């Protein structure tokens, strides 16, 4: 028997869970969604084109599951800000590391679409084009969602203020504080 693409699914499990957690911010809900998605992926393997990005295909199944559940529920499925946050261990903040609780709390305040765009593009390394394909929207839409999400996070975390100062070296510090002469020289 030739290689079954389904055998590759297991390699994407950690990423699939991470994506589910980022969308739902709720461990139990995320795992239920992963479970549903695995069954769907397994039974609909014919819709996967061998040689294409399997992770993108799996993520698409998962997000479709999530949004269709959300539609059915009529509202946001997960408005449990901070549930997942609490389960993550706190890390010391140094060298550009934001306080994780703060970051999670801010991240949870984004809307689903913004959070999704940011995770796909900012964290998982998908291109704007790939993310647009997965989300079924225009590339420009993904770009504006990520931009708005970053701006909102920066605002929520007061990133242009105290916190940012701690995490930058001299040159970027000057940039952030708007001191052009020091940075541009």
């Amino acid at each position, binding site marked *: 028997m030739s290689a079954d693409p389904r055998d590759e699914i297991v390699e994407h499990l950690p990423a699939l869970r991470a994506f589910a957690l980022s969308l739902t911010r709720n461990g139990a809900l995320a*795992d239920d969604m992963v479970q549903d998605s695995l069954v769907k992926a397994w039974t609909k393997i014919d819709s996967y084109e061998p040689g294409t990005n399997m992770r993108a295909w799996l993520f698409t199944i998962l997000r479709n599951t999530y949004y269709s559940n959300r539609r059915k529920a009529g509202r946001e499925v997960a408005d449990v800000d901070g549930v997942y946050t609490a389960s993550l261990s706190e890390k010391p903040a140094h060298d550009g590391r934001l306080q994780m609780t703060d970051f999670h709390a801010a991240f949870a305040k984004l809307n689903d679409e913004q959070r999704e765009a940011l995770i796909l593009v900012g964290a998982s390394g998908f291109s704007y084009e790939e993310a647009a394909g997965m989300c079924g929207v225009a590339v420009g839409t993904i770009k504006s969602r990520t931009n708005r999400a970053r701006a909102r*996070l920066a605002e929520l975390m007061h990133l242009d203020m105290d916190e940012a100062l701690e995490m930058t070296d001299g040159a970027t510090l000057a940039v952030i504080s708007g001191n052009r002469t020091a940075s541009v020289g």
Partner: protein
Amino acid sequence: MAQDRNKARQSQVIDDNLKRVYQDMLDEKVPDRFLDLLSQLKGQQENGNHGETK
């Protein structure tokens, strides 16, 4: 413009932290239930293998 640089730097800081959060999630151990599910699905497929093409 300093403002553009500021924005670029902000994006960088946000993405760096995002990647750390994401990496933390990636590093979590995958619960056995998913591995069990996959082998269960595979088992079903092999038991009920209706002359699947090679």
